[in-house]
Structures are given as C-alpha cells and as structure tokens.
C-alpha cells in the first residue's frame, strides 16, 4: 500500500514508448485546444480537462486488449482518445457538431466510443464502478476473458457506489480493475481534508479483500506495467486490483476554475513531474533523439490543428436528433 510496494518493470521498448508519448502529446494538445475553444465561446456548457492525467489513460490502454472495456468519468477526454476516438470526433462533440462522437447529445462529459470498448463517460461521481463490475460479470458469463476497467477520481472513493462495486467485484472475483486517478483535489477541496486515510483508493482496498497499489500516475511506463500485471491476473481468474495512480491537474476542476486553492510550490513541484517530461526523460535514456521527440509532438500538433479546423467547419447538430435514440428502435415514442 506504500511506495515500497511499487515495482518498476520496464517492459516497453523505445519504439512502443515513443508511440505512447505521441498519444500523450495528442491528448495534451487536444485538451489545450478544448480550453482555447471554450475560452473563445465555441464550446458551451463545461469542460473538465485531463491535461496532466495523460499517462494514466495512455499507459493503461496500451496494456489492455482491444476488446477490453473502459468506463470513465466526466473528466474523460483522455480515455476516449486513448481508446481510439479521434481528436476531431471529440472536439466536434464539444462544439455541438453533427460529426461529434455522440452527434451532439453527450457533450464533454459523456464522450463514448462503444465500437472500441470505451463504454462511456459518466458525470454522476462513482456511478460507473458498478457498471464496470457488471461488464466484467458479463465477460465471465460469456467466457470471453475480457477485462473491464473503471477509471475514477479520488473524490469517488467516498461515495457508496465505490464500496458496493469493490465488494461485489471482490466476492465474485470478477475481471475488473479499479484505477483511481488521484489528483489530490476533490473538485476544490484537498482530498486529505475529507478522507481519513492517506491513499483514498488503495487504503480502502484491503477492507474489501483486494490488493491496493499506489503508483506514479505520471509515468506512462509504470502505469502500463502495473495495469498489464493486474489485467493478466484478472483475466486468469485471480480477481480485481485497486490501482491508485498519483497525478495532478494542469487546469482547474472545470471551465475557468484557476485552481487558486492549490499552493504555488505544490503546483511547481508537480509541473516539474509533468507526464510528458517524465516520458521524454525515459525516452532519452533509451537513446531516442531530441529530433524524434520533436517529430512526435509536431505530428500530434498537426493532427489536432486539422481536427480543430474540421470541427469548426462541420455542420451543427441536427435538431431532429433531439427525438432519436431514446429507445432501441431509434425513436422516442412514449404513448399511443
């Protein structure tokens, strides 16, 4: 349950790690674009940006099978992209466009790409942990050896659904991973002020008979290796693992929150451990050149720039869509 329990296994080679670095750049640049579009009034409602959390989504996704299931929260852009959604689909959804992932019916908080196993972003805190548990139950019933992963924030560890899901998953030994993105703030409140244990997710695992591991969530290689081990264990019938990945938000909780409640020295410390910098250091130590790193980021930048242009030029969501997709027949008829 402590740092000592963390094992560092460097299973990723340079080319694999470089590909993950480029994905992280893609997410970072998409989040920056989302922020800029929001500030210029082209994204309405709210956004909960995941800049700073990239290593968790990218490292975990790379450790999963393509047919595994992922359930995320309203801070979920990184998971959508890590599971195959394009920046264009995501930004178009944020901009209320017909070409958006959910055709304008979901918005920033509900990005979903079911065709690649990204089964949704849920905006009621903790609600998706039981769903992931159920998807894991389904995988076992269907004998597919799929794994389900629920990603959630530190704030979710104090809600009932978290504990109900962990208990059921543990007692049925289901192939599900519970991955906490602990960014140390439950919205605007330090999680330590409202939680009696230092590791809000991992320390609760033991109460449900589950292993709880604390890892560096800003190190994509460590996330990858931890999730790979836990997924293999779950797939072989050895049950769930709680993984608490420590990370930090680059932006505030949502919208224009400047996050002034965070001490300057704390912010500075975490920015120095930015997941992109951590990955760059690892890549340099593996002999990847500065040029190659620059090319990866430039490629990501080009994709996001084109995505912004395409999303801006896409047609607005079709008003007729308001009355489709309530029912499986595609319609919304509720009476004769």
């Amino acid at each position, binding site marked *: 349950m402590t740092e000592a329990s963390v094992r560092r296994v460097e299973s990723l080679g340079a080319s694999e790690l470089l590909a993950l670095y480029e994905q992280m750049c893609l997410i970072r640049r998409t989040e920056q674009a989302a922020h800029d579009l929001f500030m210029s009034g082209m994204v309405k409602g709210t956004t909960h940006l995941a800049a700073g959390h990239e290593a968790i989504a990218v490292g975990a996704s790379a450790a999963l099978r393509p047919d595994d*299931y992922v*359930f995320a929260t309203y801070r979920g852009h990184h998971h959508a992209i890590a599971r195959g959604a394009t920046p264009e689909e995501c930004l178009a959804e944020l901009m209320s466009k017909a070409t*958006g*992932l*959910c*055709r*304008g*019916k*979901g918005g920033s908080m*509900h990005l*979903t*790409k*079911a*065709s690649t196993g990204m*089964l*949704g972003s*849920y905006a*009621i805190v903790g*609600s*998706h*942990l*039981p*769903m*992931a*548990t*159920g*998807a*894991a*139950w*389904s*995988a076992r*019933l*269907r004998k597919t050896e799929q794994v*389900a992963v629920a990603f959630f924030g530190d704030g979710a560890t104090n809600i*009932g*659904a978290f504990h*109900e*899901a962990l*208990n*059921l998953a543990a*007692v*049925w030994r289901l192939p599900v991973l519970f991955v906490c993105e602990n960014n140390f703030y439950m919205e605007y409140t330090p999680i330590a002020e409202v939680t009696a244990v230092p590791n809000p997710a991992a320390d609760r695992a033991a109460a449900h008979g589950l292993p709880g591991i604390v890892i560096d969530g800003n190190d994509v290689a460590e996330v990858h290796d931890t999730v790979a081990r836990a997924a293999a264990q779950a797939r072989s019938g050895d049950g769930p693992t709680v993984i608490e990945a420590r990370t930090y938000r680059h932006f505030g909780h949502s919208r224009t929150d400047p996050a002034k409640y965070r001490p300057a020295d704390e912010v500075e410390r975490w920015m120095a451990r930015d997941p992109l910098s951590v990955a760059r250091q690892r890549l340099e130590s593996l002999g990847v050149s500065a040029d190659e790193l620059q090319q990866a980021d430039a490629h990501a930048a080009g994709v996001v720039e084109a995505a912004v242009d395409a999303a801006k030029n896409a047609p607005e969501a079709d008003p007729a*869509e308001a009355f*489709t*997709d*309530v*029912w*499986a*027949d*595609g319609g*919304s*008829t*509720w*009476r*004769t």
Partner: protein
Amino acid sequence: MADVITYRDAVADGIAREMRRDPSVVCIGEDIGAAGGVFKTTVGLLDEFGPERVRDTPISEQAIVGAAMGAAMTGVRPIAEIMFSDFLACCWDYLANEIPKVRYMTGGQVTVPLVIRTANGGGLGFGAQHSQAVENWAFAVPGLKIAAPSTPADVVGLMAAAVRSDDPVVFFEHKGLFASKGEPAPPDHVLEFGQAGIVREGTDVTVVALASTVATALAAADRLAEKDISAEVIDLRCLIPLDVRTVLTSLERTSRLVVVEENPYQGGWGGTLVSIVADEGFDLLDAPVKRIAGACVPLPFADALEDRVIPTADAIVDQIRTLVAY
C-alpha cells in the same frame, strides 16, 4: 396444466420460460437463489439454471442495478430484482440518470436490454418504507418502459415482452396480488408492450386501472351493475408506452372517465393521463374527469389507517354514482 396458478408462481414461470429460451438471460438480486426470493417469486430458478445464471447478491442496490446495467451493455440480458420497490430509492441514480439516458447521450451507441423487477404497493401492513406504490417515480423519467401486470397470465406475457425488449423495463409486481389466482399463460405467451386490455365492457363510464386497482375496479363494477350502471374497466398493463388510444376510444362510448391509481394523488400517473384526455378528448366528455388515488400521506401501518389511504371499491362506487348523475 393446472387449472389456476398464483400470480407469485407466474413470476417464476415467466422468468423460467425466458431463461429456457435465451441463454443470455440471467437473474441477479438479494435472496433470489436458494431462498427463492422473499416473496417466493424465484422458486426453482436456481435448481434449473444454476448459480452462474441465478446470482445472490449482497444488500447493495447500487451494485445490483449498476452491474446489471454494465452487463446489459455488453451482451447479457439481466433481470435484476430490487426486493421492495421502496428500495429503488437506494439505487435511484441508475434509474434516473444512468439506465434511461446512456443510449441517448451516447448518440445511440449502446443499448440496455435490462429488466428491473420489484415488489410494489401496499395493503399488507408493511408500514411506510415497505408498502409504497412507486410506479409514478419511474413514470417521471423519460427513457424507462414500465409494466405492472394485474393477472398471472399477464405476468408471463409482459415478462416475455420485457425480457425480449432491447429497452430498459421497470417491472412492478404487486405484493397484494402475489396470492391471487388466475388462468395460467398459454405456451409462448407474449403481450405487446403498451397495449391496454378492456377487461370489462361497459357503456356509462370508463374506469382506467393498473395492477392492484384492476381488481378493485372490477369489484366496484360488479356492484354498480346491480344499480344498472355499466362500467367499462381498462387495465393499462403498462405505463410506458401509455395506451392513450384505448382510453380515448372507450370514452367515445362512455363519455365519463374515472382513473384509479394506487400511487399518491400528488404526482400520480393519472395526472398525465387525464391531462391528455382534457387536451385531446375534451369533446368526448359529458362530465368532469375524476382521479381516485393513494392519499398524500406516508403509508400507515395499522389496517384501520391503511384502509383509509389506498383506493377502495367503495370510493370508486361512490365516485361513479355521482359522476353518472352529473
């Protein structure tokens, strides 16, 4: 085949028929396995289908319904039991925010073929937290289909429709009806969702009822017949889809409407039904519409008190006699 079957046994029969037909149908809930359900509505399922398909759970309503939702999104057809409908409040997030919305808010990317069964309603002296008729809770949320059968055969026919539906269905079994008996369902019995039944034909007044209030309305109609008042009784069977057409067609014959609901008058489903009648059927009416519903108080324990707050045949007879004289 037995001459009659209880409503209670019809629940297990309806589930078993679907589990035999489709191996992806599974059951999940508290005490549904070896115990056969606290109302004995799942007796025999564990023996026939085994513990992988008939799973006991902890007392964790959010885990039950949330896991059923996750399973439904990934290729399984779960039937989740919430023991008493009052306990739906413990997992209401899933019924209000998750299950009815996930298909819509993802632009149709996922389906949730899920049945949530629950024992609903009063009359058995279980007090304020185990007796409520809460069908109106579900009725307030777009995106849920709602069935509430009144007879054993309808239990089987609506269960088949619910399990085969690709939409989420809340299935209200009435506690007061579990011991009631009726004809067994024929083989392969499937009812159409949103198709009300005219269970007694009449010419003077249309009485719209659901689940427990169907028998109450029929008892009232018998007594009114002795006074030469002819009441037509409609069993809605489902609240969503709501079969307004059958009600309006009946009003063309009777021109008078009484709605009998067990859920509270405040926020009860009858309010929506009569508002549609007022809007689309105003010219058909020769008298004011009347709603007889649960009183707007928590359900009391003592029989003498509970009898005062749940709709009775006496109340229906009195209301209709006034209405016919209007």
